[in-house]
């Protein structure tokens, strides 16, 4: 989930702030003064998005670890820029795997030693080997395992070296959501297809997430599913491919196919809620929110496979000493079970699920991980019921979903070029 924007666990809060924007008001380069300088306990600064920088998590961690933790949540572009430009401004950086290349290239982060990670051995094969199961597709683009290990030449690769560029933790599969009140319900993995995004039937009521590293792949998957073009490697498109894809997209846009792009989860919710959009790229919390409002939004399980994202927790190249130790403690805490269970209730997965299982009820585990019908209504982290009795998670179980990854959110070599093209697309 490369360009996640302002996703908050607390749905009420999150809805209240609907309309908050990508970069928001805190879009200043210089970090604000530290809000709390408590005691002599070590203090770590965490920069990241709202997906993981949640107050409940922060408090729990402070309580569990006895350290001071400061969260600096922001839009993904903002935090990426901040982190890559000024490594001294943070100890830990929580973002998406597609930002790793940028950060790594910028020398903003330092390798993390697997020896210091208590639960390293429990981390599943998705990040270690690239496949959650032997049957699984690897998925195109920057699959996290390709970026995980720090190679002797300083590059990032899949070979294990004992040093990793990020701590594997939160991840999920994304797809598009559609309003089943308008669009007939499809069959997961069979009829549901990325191609729907470019289906002429929904002209004018389609939106993409406003991020070339994410939305572009939704569009590419759709174009491919519609048979409009082929990619040599969708995960790293050539300039001509980028040109061709954007030609198709601009063509669609000019014909009024797209309502536009959305820049935040609340924005995506508004679009579908208002009826402006019936099908669009979506993030899990947006789907939950719409369902909570009574809009029958279905989070599709496209037969082409999901677009997956993987959260990364990186250690600042400037973090040393006591702060570095504290940062390791925080990383280990993240895999200690409670946080995994916490974010599971928001629909996210953790890289060592079994440890979180103990912190979840059986119905919770069955629903969130096992892909089974909810045997009782399940509450979200906000305390409200977010899953009705009998409901089944679209796409099936954790394994099932991650066996069907078509592509990972990726910063391609043509990243800068896609940015220029993206502007053209958005404003065409």
């Amino acid at each position, binding site marked *: 989930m490369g360009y996640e924007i302002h996703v908050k666990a607390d749905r009420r809060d999150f809805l209240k702030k609907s309309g908050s924007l990508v970069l928001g008001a805190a879009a200043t380069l210089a970090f604000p003064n530290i809000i709390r300088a408590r005691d002599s306990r070590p203090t770590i600064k965490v920069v990241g998005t709202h997906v993981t920088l949640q107050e409940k998590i922060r408090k729990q961690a402070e309580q569990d670890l006895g350290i001071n933790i400061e969260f600096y949540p922001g839009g993904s*572009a903002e935090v990426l820029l901040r982190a890559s430009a000024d490594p001294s401004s943070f100890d830990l950086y929580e973002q998406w795997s597609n930002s790793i290349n940028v950060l790594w290239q910028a020398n903003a982060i330092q390798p993390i030693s697997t020896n210091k990670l208590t639960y390293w051995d429990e981390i599943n094969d998705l990040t270690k080997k690239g496949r959650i199961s032997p049957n699984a597709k690897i998925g195109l683009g920057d699959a996290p395992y390709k970026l995980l290990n720090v190679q002797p030449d300083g590059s990032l690769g899949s070979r294990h070296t004992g040093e990793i560029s990020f701590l594997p933790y939160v991840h999920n599969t994304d797809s598009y959501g559609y309003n089943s009140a308008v669009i007939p319900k499809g069959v997961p993995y069979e009829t549901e297809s990325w191609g729907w995004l470019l289906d002429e039937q929904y002209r004018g009521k389609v939106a993409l997430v406003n991020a070339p590293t994410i939305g572009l792949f939704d569009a590419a998957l759709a174009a491919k599913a519609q048979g409009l073009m082929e990619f040599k490697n969708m995960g790293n498109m050539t300039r001509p491919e980028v040109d061709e894809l954007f030609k198709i997209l601009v063509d669609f846009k000019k014909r009024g196919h797209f309502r536009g792009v959305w820049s935040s989860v609340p924005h995506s919710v508004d679009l579908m809620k208002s009826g402006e959009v019936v099908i669009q790229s979506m993030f899990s919390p947006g789907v939950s929110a719409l369902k909570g409002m009574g809009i029958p939004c279905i989070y599709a399980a496209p037969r082409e496979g999901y677009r997956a994202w993987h959260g990364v927790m990186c250690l600042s190249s400037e973090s040393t000493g006591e702060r570095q130790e504290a940062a390791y403690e925080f990383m280990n805490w993240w895999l200690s079970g409670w946080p995994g269970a916490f974010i599971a209730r928001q629909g996210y997965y953790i890289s060592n699920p079994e440890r979180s299982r103990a912190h979840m009820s059986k119905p919770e585990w069955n629903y969130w991980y096992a892909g089974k019908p909810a045997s009782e209504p399940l509450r979200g982290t906000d305390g409200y019921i977010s899953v009705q009795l009998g409901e089944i998670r679209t796409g099936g179980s954790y394994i099932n979903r991650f066996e069907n990854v078509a592509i990972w959110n990726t910063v391609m070599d043509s990243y*800068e070029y896609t940015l220029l093209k993206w502007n053209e697309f958005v404003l065409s």
Partner: protein
Amino acid sequence: MFGSLKLKHKIFAGFISVGLVATAIAVFSYGTFNLVSTNFRIFVNSSNSAQLGLLLARDVSEIQRQALIYTYEAHGSAAEQVHELYRGMSDTLQKSSEHESEYIKKIRAHLKAYMSTFEQLQKQKQLQHRLVYNDIRTSASDAEKHLRSYIKLISNHEDHTSLLQDERILNTLLLVEKNAMRYFDSLDPQYIGEAKENLAEVRKRLQKIEANDTSKAAMDHIRPAMKEVVEYERVFLEAVARTRGYLFLVNVVMAAEAYEVLYNAKLMSAQISQEMGEIEQGTFSMLQQVIGTLVVAIGISLLLVVILSLLIGRSITNPIVSLTTAFRALSKGSHHAEIPVYEADDEIGHLTRAASVFKEKNRQTEQLLDHKKQLAKELEGNKKELERSNDELEQFVYTVSHDLKSPLVTSMGFIGIIQKLAAQGKLEEAVEKLDRVVKSNERMGQLINDLLDLSRVGRVDMDKIDIDLNELLASFHEVHSQQIEKAEFTMQIEPGLPVIYANESRILQLFENMLSNALKYAYNPAGSVLSIGSKEHDDAYLVWFRDNGPGIPEEYHEKIFGLFYRLDPETEGTGIGLAVAAKVMKFHNGKIWVESSPGEGATFWLSFSKNEEDSE
């Protein structure tokens, strides 16, 4: 409801009703025109807003264009343009803040986000610019300076190969800059990699020198050069990060915000156009409806005015017409004039009461007139009575002179005949005629006696007493029984006769005359009957004398009561009897008349007033 109102109030009520209706129409019209003007204002506002939408759409495209120019060309003027356009758009939005539509709100928010992103972009851009055109160069030249110093130092005692090696480092270092600049120009990340590789090579070579050369020159220059190269890389990477950052900002974040502004502006224009169309349509149909309603309302109000006028007019004129009729009748002196009922205490009410007063006056006048007429009638009666008395007197004188002369003519006539006969020697015949002279003279004496009797009536023995006619007539019958028998009459007296207040001798004279009259004229060969009876009338006792004689033709019914009038010249009598009877009755304030027809007998009625005693 009108009837009980005062005239003034009726008119006022009428005016107020009409006024109220007119006011209602006016208010309705005002409301309508208000609505129309409101619609017009909305229309104008909408038009402005639609205009605003188009302006915003135009400006937002322009602002993004300028932002891109700034981003890629780093023209300060383009940034200024962006700010200028933003201010302009903000002002435009500010102006339209009166009716804050959802679109305006969204546009404002997106525009604000756009601008804050742009400000961020500017900072990034400035930083990047400093990094690229200052820091990178500084690092590059510092590193180069150290390297060159080192080369200069070692060139004195080093072999050419190592020198060549060192020169190659310098070249690689230059390649770094070249590649870096290529990246910033082309934005092709490939050059980042190449630059990084170059830097890595430089670093590697420098490390190698550092490892092999422990001289002071190396110490003094290679280490700082190394440091500069590290800094060089850091600065370069930061510049790359910042470049990517602002590229993201302008192409993704700002583009999206700009698009949202554009989209909402277009939508606003479209919606406003539609609304304007609706308002136009609505206003038009409302106006039509209103005109219809107004026509109906005015029609109703006119009808109301007419009805009210009629009602008021009628409620005023009806009483007035009735009153006029009444007054016209009253002015003619009528007291039967119908005065309309009118309760209200207004002018007409006063007139109505005045009419009643007139009516009462008229009634009194009428009474006075009646009284006067009564008096005049009485006077006339008295006058006639007097005239009749005179006529009677004249008649009396005439009759007396004629009838008294008649025997004289007879006497003289016979005497003349006697003389003639005597002269002719017809003595026997003459003597015969002497008896006729005697008889004539006797008749003259009789006439004179009768006249005396008549003249006595009302002058002599006028005392009146109550007379029981039963007794009186019984003795009268007895006294005259011989006479009646002789005339072959039967006299029947019915019982139950009244007691009358009268002069007894005159009444007896009357009865005698009635009897002799009957005996003279009412002989019936089949048996003459004279019956006497009475009946009681309202204020009089009626005594009748009925015979079964030949009857009297109607033409003589009055004449027979005249003096010296005789129906039959052959019968005896002077013709005074019934005249005396009439005079006696008159003396008693009574009347005498006859009912008869030929062959049916005759009935003489004597009417005695019951109140005779009182009138005395």
